[in-house]
């Protein structure tokens, strides 16, 4: 299976997962020059930016470990643009990671924050 197809499948699975978890999706594959955010959702009063990582097997390390500092920075920067566009800068904000490997879906809430990333 090619990497791209695997990723798209993973994101679809994650989309279903957050809906089941009671979150309301706001945007999918939000793309800006600074990067891309897989899913933006609303969880109660918080705006949640979700990065989906998919792996067919664990032999390259866990999927959540693949969200590097560089990736975190691009997510935070893109998130800022989204918040600005939607006038949400003073809302409650969270960065989550959904890690999918095979059948396993793991939701890591508050996986990282913007400390020293801007």
């Amino acid at each position: 299976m090619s990497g791209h197809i695997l990723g798209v499948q993973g994101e679809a699975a994650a989309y279903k997962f957050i809906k089941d978890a009671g979150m309301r999706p706001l945007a999918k594959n939000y793309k800006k020059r600074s990067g891309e955010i897989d899913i933006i959702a609303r969880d109660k009063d918080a705006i949640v930016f979700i990065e989906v990582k998919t792996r067919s097997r664990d032999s390259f390390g866990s999927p959540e470990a693949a969200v590097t500092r560089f990736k975190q920075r691009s997510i935070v920067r893109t998130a800022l643009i989204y918040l600005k566009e939607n006038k949400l800068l003073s809302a409650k904000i969270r960065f989550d990671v959904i890690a999918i490997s095979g059948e396993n879906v793991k939701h890591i809430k508050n996986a990282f924050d913007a400390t020293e990333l801007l």
Partner: protein
Amino acid sequence: MLSTTLCYGLGGIDGLQITVEVNLSSGLPMFDIVGLPDAAVKEARERIRAALRNCGYSFPEDRITVNLAPADLKKEGPSFDLPIAIAILACSHRVNPIAIRDIAILGELSLDGSVRPIRGALPMAISARTHGVKKMILPDGNSSEVSCIDGIELIPARNLTQVVRHLSGEEKIPPIEAAAYSQLLKNREYSSDFRFVKGQRSAKRALEIAAAGGHNVLMVGPPGSGKTLMARCMPSILPDMTFDEALVSTRIHSVAGCAPESGLLTERPFRSPHHTASHVSLVGGGVHAVPGEISKAHNGVLFLDELPEYKRDVLEALRQPMEDGFVSITRVSAQSTYPSEFMLICSMNPCPCGHYGSRTHECRCSSAEIRRYLSRVSGPLLDRIDMHIEVESIPAERLSEEKEAEASCEIRKRVEEARAFQRQRYENSKISCNARLGAQNIHEFCKLAPDARKMLSMATETMGLSNRAFTRIIKVARTIADLEKEMVINQTHIAEALQYRSIDDKYWH
């Protein structure tokens, strides 16, 4: 949501009150510490995050801003971990924010939430008491160090959960019970005792005088004559420290991170740095301007064995702190003043082979070698040493016939009496002992009999004494008179004091 609590930092041997303010707001989640934190304070973020999670508390998903006020003062070290963690919990109402507003909290956190001991807990606790803080939470590992402090409620903390439960009133931690100082003094034991030093009657007499007046001593003698042994016996004949002296000494050790396990330092410190010591280790310094050996020896003895082996610049650096009784250390990040009223005891051989002037061995050194060896000790330093004594080696046959000598506790009784006599005289001044007399006080406190004055002026002429040497002789004579409880210094006192000045003529001429 804002909450504040108090913490303490170190400035020299004093604690500096620092207000820890934590603000939670919505917005991009971040954890920032402002107020000139150093690397260890910034790393608190990771320790706090892990400790809170591992203790089962949720880490807030908000923007966390920590301010350490006053903001223009550099904050060092990990002692801010616990107050920041507690203030964060107060913001999320896990702890009552009002309950922590007026108490001081200190402690380093480990990742599992246990509280680690910190450096300088004693000076911080003392300063908190002076600032009127009623209650202080500090690491359990520091509790023996601060157990002598009363007038402030000190709560020993083992881990984060315990502190939270204490603050919320679920399970109170009993405060540390203050131990009486006199209780601590009782069980003193010395490894070295003058009882085991055979012979050397004149050297012992000289050391007794030195102990009674706090004078500096130089011992010159061949190897194996007992110089080091006698120096190590000195703490056993020095008078007990007063409570205030013990507090200052312990504070210095606490700042240097070497406070005794048992808590308060009750025995006068005896420091004997090796002769390879650098001047930073001796005088103090480093990035954080920590106290050196001379400050750790405050109120005690600094023993320099084999004096000529020390680097010259190291010895010269001692001159100013010896005169002033304090040392100011200035570094880029810190400026500190530490007290350094120590009694200097030095020992040395008279020549490289060690037997110059000995009656039992023949010296193998050339006169040039001897001169070079002796010249490593500078004149100005010698001038600052009140008493120079010669220690002779004792022939083996006399060692075996000699009975057990006088015990240290007997000598100490006489020393304590002489010190009490001095204290009476210096009641209304800041002087602690005869050695601390300044040139301006000499006339006021050291009354000489006419014949003593005459003898002294004659000796000054024939021996070519410097002004400093002159006042030092009077000070030593004052101590000899104190040992006999005489108000006026007479001729015999001066004569004995002069004798402790005569050997520099023999070697350094």
